[in-house]
């Protein structure tokens, strides 16, 4: 009897790149954490960088001012690390087909949501889940469930890509 779902159905692109990529994402986090005790997330960069140009009290909290310089360095390093990957693996110059309005609307909601929710896929998803932190587990379960429903609705509405 044929199995209902095969491995190839669930992972049409295999798993090694996903697992190896995930391991490196974790390793990058681990290097910074073990050297500094700072759990580095990617979304705080948005608010801390806005402190350079805005007087609003929200952006000018001490912890943003104190971390904004290294967060810029961290983000530029993420860009550079991905560029090294792309050049090494011949992946450089790939561009998305996802429409501009989806990128814009999605981006705005991501900007609002990660900041109100205290973190993103790296802050809650990698550092928080790695810490077995209840708040992060709840946040990840929430955004994962909502994102799945949203993406399926968008697909069902015939929007592609």
């Amino acid at each position, binding site marked *: 009897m044929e199995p209902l779902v095969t491995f190839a159905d*669930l992972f049409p692109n295999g798993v090694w790149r996903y697992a190896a990529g995930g391991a490196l994402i974790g390793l990058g986090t681990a290097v910074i954490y073990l050297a500094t005790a700072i759990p580095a997330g990617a979304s705080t960069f948005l608010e801390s960088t806005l402190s350079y140009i*805005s007087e609003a009290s929200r952006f000018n909290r001490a912890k943003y001012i104190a971390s904004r310089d290294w967060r810029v360095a961290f983000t530029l390093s993420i860009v550079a690390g991905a560029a090294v*990957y792309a050049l090494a693996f011949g992946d450089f110059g790939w561009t998305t087909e996802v429409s501009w309005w989806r990128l814009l609307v999605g981006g705005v909601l991501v900007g609002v949501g990660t900041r109100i929710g205290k973190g993103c896929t790296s802050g809650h998803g990698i550092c928080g889940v790695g810490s077995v932190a209840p708040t992060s587990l709840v946040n990840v379960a929430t955004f994962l469930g909502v994102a799945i429903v949203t993406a399926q609705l968008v697909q069902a509405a015939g929007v592609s890509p």
Partner: protein
Amino acid sequence: MFLPVVVVGGLIFGFGLGLSRMARPEVVLDFLQFEDFGLLFVLGVGSVVAGTAFAIGVNVLDRAPLTGRAYARRLKSFDRNVLTGGVIFGVGWGISGICPGAAYASVGIGNYPVLIAISGMFLGAYAQGIWRSRTADGSAASAASD
């Protein structure tokens, strides 16, 4: 040494985001639409590796060599914002397939349209910051806490 270590960590982090293909919104959308479950390995393996470092720091080591900070788990207080923010982020992630770290990495692979998404993130972060600054200034007794 602080900045060089942050840079090395960021380079590895960004390389991993590229290799995992999470820097492509299409791959994230395929995952959310149940066409390729590979992203479970990115999040799973990533949090296990990071979690190992957190466990070593908290249980074995004393203070971080570069900052003198005590190691602690990443714990945030729970309140309604965690759910509200999670829902809003989830809708945004489901529409675009883009999250902050992956978006920065996407710039690195030359995916220039993602700059639209990053501009959107700054707009969103700015709007909520202005709103929360007003809320906090208007009612000093119940300042918006993180």
